[in-house]
């Protein structure tokens, strides 16, 4: 029996052992030569560790920042765009535009030879024309449009800016000229067209889809004019973009752009530390990244503001002097240092310094206990009083920790004899009760949809917004509202700036709210990744990004 066993085994065992040996050698040898091997490919590619999956590949139908980051600037272009430096509107697909004197007609002159993506599922036969622009906007505006109800028929951004009640008609003048006719002048209209949401789709592609009765694909298998085209998307795992070789602004430096979808905060940090991603969104452990020799932590001030709003219809905050007194008593620097770890801009006004309407001459309430006490005395509250501060118990982009912020304010106000009670509710209830004006004061904030300053003023402090519920101060000032209206009716930036400066001065004077901080948006990247990715407004952009391999050594 033993001999039998022996005869059967030798071949089997030897081959098995050999296999094991071969695999061990392979595995052992591989790690050493690995780094050198990927160099050629990785030097022309970027892996971006994103925080979540996109809901769709068409920014028209979404509002989430994650989706905008993952799609808007890579796949598409808009008629006009924001210049990243000062956020003024600059040409994109439209090389120029003209607004009539009454502001009701805007004519766009389109660039010629803008090519759409050529992919496995679509080969364009023509470059971009007015038809594509008409298609992209009529899809949103015309409820009977063939593509309007595809993907649910909701266009949240355009509904919130009431585009359908603003645009009378989009008219094709010739192949490369489009005219928008408006019901009334609106100077934030151009800003709305320049947001990441107002992308231009391909009409030819839509026709092809309509012919095959696969309308849905327009939002899932995108065709645009942007610097990258979609190659592959695996839900919850990754998005692979390839370079669009016929891109009208010239080829980008990267061959490939991969979004590695990593929802876990620690997962993104680990991948960044192990070089598995080149850029990571919303990093944690800022200190660790700053200390790391090969990593850079970047921040841009994004267009948001955290503020303390006073309910101006409730005593004692119906008294301007009390509002000012409280404002003087709050140490903004301490708040920024504690809540934002010093990584936010101290807010002087509703607008941050990056906005074109920012006015440096506006005086804010500089922390001064003496002044606060003086004002309280003037108002007749020498012995102080008791007040409520409402603070949400969840994290928002503009305020990472409202409850702690409320506690800091509580301590500050104790100095001038004001006793503060902190009130908190579950988020939905919280907003509901504020709408009804139940609060005395509240820690809230606002993230802008586009850099036009009107978005801050009208939404937060106009009389109309008292009724719609977004004005938590219940403050209604006719002179202020008048300035906002005047500013919307003109397109002259200089005049608008003057109007907004006056509006800011009224806010500083009346103090319906106290702006506290403009928080930043963070991103971490490997040192060899060069070029601008984040801008202070809108989604990320890899147009100018390249890899500097020398820097890696």
């Amino acid at each position: 029996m033993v001999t039998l066993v022996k005869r059967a085994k030798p071949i089997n065992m030897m081959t098995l052992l050999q296999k094991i040996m071969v695999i061990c050698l392979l595995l052992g040898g591989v790690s050493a030569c690995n780094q050198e091997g990927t160099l050629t490919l990785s030097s022309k590619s970027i892996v971006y560790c994103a925080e979540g999956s996109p809901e769709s590949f068409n920014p028209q139908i979404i509002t989430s920042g994650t989706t905008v980051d993952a799609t808007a600037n890579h796949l598409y272009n808009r008629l006009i765009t924001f210049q990243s430096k000062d956020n003024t509107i600059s040409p994109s697909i439209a090389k120029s535009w003209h607004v009539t004197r009454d502001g009701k007609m805007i004519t766009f002159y389109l660039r010629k030879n803008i090519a759409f993506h050529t992919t496995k599922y679509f080969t364009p036969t023509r470059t971009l024309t007015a038809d594509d622009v008409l298609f992209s906007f009529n899809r949103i505006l015309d409820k009977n449009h063939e593509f309007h109800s595809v993907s649910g028929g909701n266009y949240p951004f355009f509904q919130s800016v009431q585009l359908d009640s603003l645009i009378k008609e989009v008219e094709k003048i010739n192949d490369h000229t489009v005219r928008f006719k408006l019901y009334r002048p609106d100077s934030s209209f151009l800003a709305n067209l320049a947001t990441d949401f107002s992308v231009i789709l391909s009409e030819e592609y839509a026709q092809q889809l309509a012919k095959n009765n696969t309308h849905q694909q327009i939002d899932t298998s995108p065709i645009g004019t942007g610097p990258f085209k979609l190659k592959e998307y695996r839900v919850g795992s990754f998005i692979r973009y390839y370079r669009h070789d016929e891109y009208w602004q010239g080829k980008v430096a990267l061959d490939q752009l991969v979004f590695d979808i990593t929802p876990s905060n620690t997962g993104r940090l680990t991948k960044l530390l192990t070089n598995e991603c080149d850029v990571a969104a919303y990093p944690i452990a800022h200190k660790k990244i700053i200390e790391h020799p090969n990593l850079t932590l970047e921040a841009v001030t994004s267009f948001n503001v955290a503020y303390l709003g006073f309910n101006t219809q409730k005593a004692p905050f119906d008294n301007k002097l009390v509002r000012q007194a409280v404002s003087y008593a709050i140490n903004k620097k301490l708040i920024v240092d504690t809540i934002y770890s010093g990584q936010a801009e101290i807010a002087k006004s509703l607008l941050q310094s990056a906005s074109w309407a920012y006015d440096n001459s506006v005086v804010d309430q500089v922390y001064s206990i003496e002044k606060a006490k003086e004002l309280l005395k003037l108002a007749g509250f020498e012995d102080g009083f008791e007040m409520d501060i409402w603070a949400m118990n969840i994290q928002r982009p503009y305020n990472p920790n409202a409850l702690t912020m409320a506690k800091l304010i509580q301590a500050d106000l104790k100095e001038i004899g004001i006793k503060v009670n902190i009130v908190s509710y579950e988020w939905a209830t919280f907003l509901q009760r504020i709408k009804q004006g139940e609060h005395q004061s509240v820690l809230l904030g606002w993230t802008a949809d586009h850099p036009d300053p009107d978005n801050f003023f009208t939404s937060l402090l106009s009389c109309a917004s008292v009724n719609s519920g977004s004005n938590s101060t219940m403050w209604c000032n006719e002179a202020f509202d008048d300035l906002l209206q005047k500013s919307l009716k003109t397109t002259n930036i200089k005049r608008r700036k003057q109007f907004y400066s006056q509006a800011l001065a009224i806010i500083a004077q009346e103090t319906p709210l106290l702006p506290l901080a403009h928080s930043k948006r963070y991103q971490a990247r490997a040192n060899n990744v060069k070029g601008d990715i984040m801008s202070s407004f809108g989604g990320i952009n890899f147009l100018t990004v390249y890899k500097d391999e020398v820097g890696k050594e």
Partner: protein
Amino acid sequence: MLIFTLRRLNLFFFTMLLLTILSFSLSFLFPGNALINVSGQINASPEQLILLSESYQSESSIVTQYISYLKHVLSGDLGLSMSSQTPINVEIADLLPATIELSMVALLLAMAIGIPLGFIAAIKHNKSADSLILSIAMIGYSVPVFWLGLLAILIFSIIFPWLPSAGQISLLFEIKHITGIQLIDILLSDNIYKWQAFQNASAHIILPACVVAMAPGTIFIRLARSSMLEVLETSYIRAASAKGLTFNQIIFHHAIRNSLVKIIRHVGLQFANLVTLAMITEVIFSWPGIGRWLIDSIYQRDYTAIQSGLLVLSCFIFIVHILTDFIYAALNPLARDSKHA
């Protein structure tokens, strides 16, 4: 051999029967409508529901329902995933190969390291090398796999940036899905960066495979040790030694071969253990396999996926088990005559 084969097939048949009954009853045990649980059609319109009900015969007796369920399973229709609404057989076909790849590499690793160490321990029986190896085995066996995984990432990815911490391959490489087993797919692909991709994928598999291999490897140490000790006690070894063969000749020509046969038998058993470990490891290393998918499904209460995933996974483990039994029987004629399966 014929009787042996028939016996195994018999065992296979009855186990499958039990497994399908269990998986079938799960759709009733899970909360919600049994028909929707089994089909995964959460957004079905009333008309579609009537069609579904006919196809699964949910109005008939429980036996008829079971038979129609079996028909669906046998035709490869495992229903739709409740969370993604894609057919589960497609998802499984995508993910199972990655798990097989990880498990196979880990198994080979466990055997390649565990068995020789076990032999050394047996040969140096009751010496310090023996106790050293045994204590290593004991520690290795006791370490929880999730902790080991995190530790491995911390040491070999973060402190010493030698190996990648997540995924199957760097996402930069675009590898077409052919067999699903990444290393083979890379070799089959016509990517110009083929060799780089292969190196990259191999670097990615090292950490998770080592982590998975740890516990089974220590079991192989102990198995190899005891089986070698047993063989060294036998009379034919003593006879060989009496004939004047050198120690090396005895070990390499007689002892190793005979003790290996005994170990092969346990490979099948260890494989089930290995797959369980691989499921946890997949979560830690973001390995795109069926384990991570199944655990995600549990989080998302995706009952259809849990039900079908369990069925496919247990079926797979069982097939491997039977296959190793066949290999063992082919190597060891004694086993073929054993009366019980």
